[in-house]
């Protein structure tokens, strides 16, 4: 599960990691007052940011620096009344419902750095699969994409493993801070942030806890040494662990999810929408991936990943059909089921019943697009017999003899 930036800031702040003053708003009317609350006359700079999970906000004009309440209101009006378009949004764009208004931060220039470069760092805790433990990842180059750095200059990335039970030791944080180039009091401040971030990662069952950038601010009268502060953060949580974090569940924003995927979740199906035109209904995640692969191999384009569960019950298949066909791009469906414990004749009956019952968007009943069904496993012969007999009243149904035959048939059927 992902959360919004404003929620991530709340988590950081709750864990004792300094963040700039800021507040979430959901209407234009709140903008001016919120701007005033997070800024002061001496430092009028603030930033208005659209709260969406999709990236590319800056280039799309959905992150704006403002210097007055009127500018904040203008930015808020623009963002809340226009759809955001970026390479990561769907073609029709994304409606923005929430904004974050946060105080601008005066970042300390980096000594010896390029002109205009500030003291910005990257910090994250995530799972190191190869070593089967969490790892702290840090880089002196904050604010940019870490994947790019990892790919182009892996030596610019510093890693420190967390003990699976004890977490990050304070000395590890100090060492990483020194290697990042922190000096003097900032070393302890940065190490403290790392400690707290590592604790947060473990305590909240994160799969990613990222601060990008972590900055050093310019000295002020209140903070004569400047502060080490988190400007932006991103959290992903382990879905398997959400059952023990009620407060995190409450942060879930259903408007960020694909409606089909949400519906699938409610029925215990695993569904991911893709952009092809051949719907896939499969039992088992590995077989479902392999089915997408074989469709592609035969020149087709899969519309989705769908794991209907090991038993492929009639209820699950009915729901799955309905989710798959709610995507208007779908021109044909391939069902691929390996009947293990559940017998093929039972599965075939379920598939046929579900197809007969299927409600089209115009209210009519029955399956209209080509439906290629491939069954294998226990009692497969009676399962196939059943499919052949059902073809009389399900004219688009085509039983397949094997996996390759099914892929060929469905690709041919959608043209």
């Amino acid at each position, binding site marked *: 599960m992902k959360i919004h930036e404003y929620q991530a800031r709340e988590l950081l702040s709750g864990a004792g990691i300094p963040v700039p003053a800021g507040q979430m708003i959901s209407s234009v009317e709140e903008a001016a007052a919120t701007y005033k609350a997070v800024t002061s006359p001496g430092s009028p700079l603030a930033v208005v940011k659209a709260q969406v999970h999709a990236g590319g906000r800056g280039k799309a004009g959905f992150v704006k620096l403002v210097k007055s309440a009127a500018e904040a209101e203008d930015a808020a009006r623009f963002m809340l009344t226009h759809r955001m378009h970026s390479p990561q949004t769907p073609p029709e764009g994304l409606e923005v419902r929430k904004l974050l208004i946060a105080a601008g931060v005066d970042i300390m220039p980096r000594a010896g750095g390029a002109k205009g470069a500030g003291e910005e760092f990257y910090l994250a805790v995530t*799972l190191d*699969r*190869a070593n*089967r*433990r*969490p790892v702290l990842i840090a880089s002196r180059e904050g604010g940019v994409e870490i*994947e790019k750095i*990892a*790919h182009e200059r892996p030596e610019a990335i510093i890693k420190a493993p967390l*003990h*699976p*039970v004890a977490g990050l030791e304070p000395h590890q944080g100090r060492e990483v801070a020194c290697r990042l180039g922190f000096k003097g009091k900032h070393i302890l401040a940065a190490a403290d942030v790392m400690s707290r971030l590592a604790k947060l990662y*473990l305590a909240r*069952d994160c*799969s990613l806890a990222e601060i990008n950038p972590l900055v050093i601010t310019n000295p002020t009268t209140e903070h004569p040494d400047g502060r080490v502060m988190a400007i932006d953060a991103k959290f992903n949580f*382990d*879905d*398997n*662990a959400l*059952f*023990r974090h009620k407060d995190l569940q409450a942060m879930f924003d259903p408007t960020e999810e694909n409606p089909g995927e949400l519906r699938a979740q409610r029925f215990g199906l*695993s569904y*991911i929408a*893709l952009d092809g035109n051949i719907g896939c209904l*499969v*039992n*088992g*995640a*590995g*077989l*479902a*991936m*392999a*089915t*997408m*692969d*074989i*469709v*592609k*191999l035969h020149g087709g384009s*899969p519309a989705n*990943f769908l*794991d209907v569960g*090991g038993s492929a019950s009639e209820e699950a298949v009915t729901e799955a059909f309905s989710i798959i066909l709610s995507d208007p791009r779908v021109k044909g469906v391939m069902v691929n089921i*390996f*009947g*293990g*414990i*559940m*017998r093929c004749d039972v599965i075939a009956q379920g598939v046929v019943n579900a197809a007969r019952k299927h409600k089209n968007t115009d209210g009519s009943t029955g399956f209209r697009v080509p439906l290629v069904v491939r069954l*294998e*496993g*226990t*009692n497969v012969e009676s399962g196939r017999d059943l499919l052949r007999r059902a073809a009389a009243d399900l004219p688009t149904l085509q039983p397949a003899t*094997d*996996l*390759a035959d099914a*892929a060929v048939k469905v690709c041919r059927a959608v043209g």
Partner: protein
Amino acid sequence: MSVLVDRNTRVICQGITGAYGAQHTKGCLLYGTQLVGGVTPGKGGTRDDNSLPIFDTVEQAVKATGADATMIFVPPGLAADAILEAAASGLRVIAAITEGIPVNDMVRCRALLDEMNASRPEARRSVLIGPNCPGIITPGRKTGAGTSKDDPYTSASKGAGGCKIGIMPGYIHTHVSESKLGKSVGIVSRSGTLTYEAVWQTSALGLAQSTCIGIGGDPVRGLNHIDCLRLFEADPDTHGILMIGEIGGRDETDAAGFAKAHCTKPVAAFIAGRTAPPGRRMGHAGAIVGGADDTADAKIAALKAAGVEVAMSPADMGKAIARAMKIG
């Protein structure tokens, strides 16, 4: 011969009183597995529908039954602890079927398991299979036991040489004495139904399976591909190895290196997820493309470079291992 489990393996079920645990306890009994008892804390002293004794702790179960393996069906939030309990009680093979265990639980569990194993002589170490897996099976002969000929679990009986620990349909597997070609394939896979598909294809081609190991779809688990390659390579009755992987992590890439350096037996592989979009979790918690190295194409390239016969289509898995073994 086989790896890890055989006709003599004595198995208990942790979570035997849950619906899923009870169903598959029955299935394993029908297959001919020596299932000798179960564990549900608080229900010790009672018996299940098959008259198997139920114990409060794994330690009690081991003492009373002489079990050396377990299958775990306890709910996700309690499963990591169940694994550690099994290991602490000295069980040699732990098949964790449970799906949905929090990753941090498995990180902790695996670290503690490794610690426990490090203090033991090799012969007494616990091998973890899974979690989120179908389990492990060493096929037995089809003797017509079980409830009927079409019973999906059955086809072997006590003494037929088989051992099924987990949720896979038993009857699709073939014992070497009943295979047309008289050769056995060892199968290792991160997936459930895709494994059954591979078993089905090899059986249909006249091949047998020595042992099939479902290592599971989670990012942190017990056995990896590389461990299974090592086991199959050392097993004199495994004649070829079929490895089924998927996107995410670098286990298949590591296994490719191992195959090149150490495997004298033919190896074939299939990697699922060539069409999977990056950053999306494809059903399995571990099946997610994170970077350039863990895509299906990167893994396929590594396997090919190691001389492994790669099936590009899931319909070709059986034929790929047959090609690698130069038969059929």
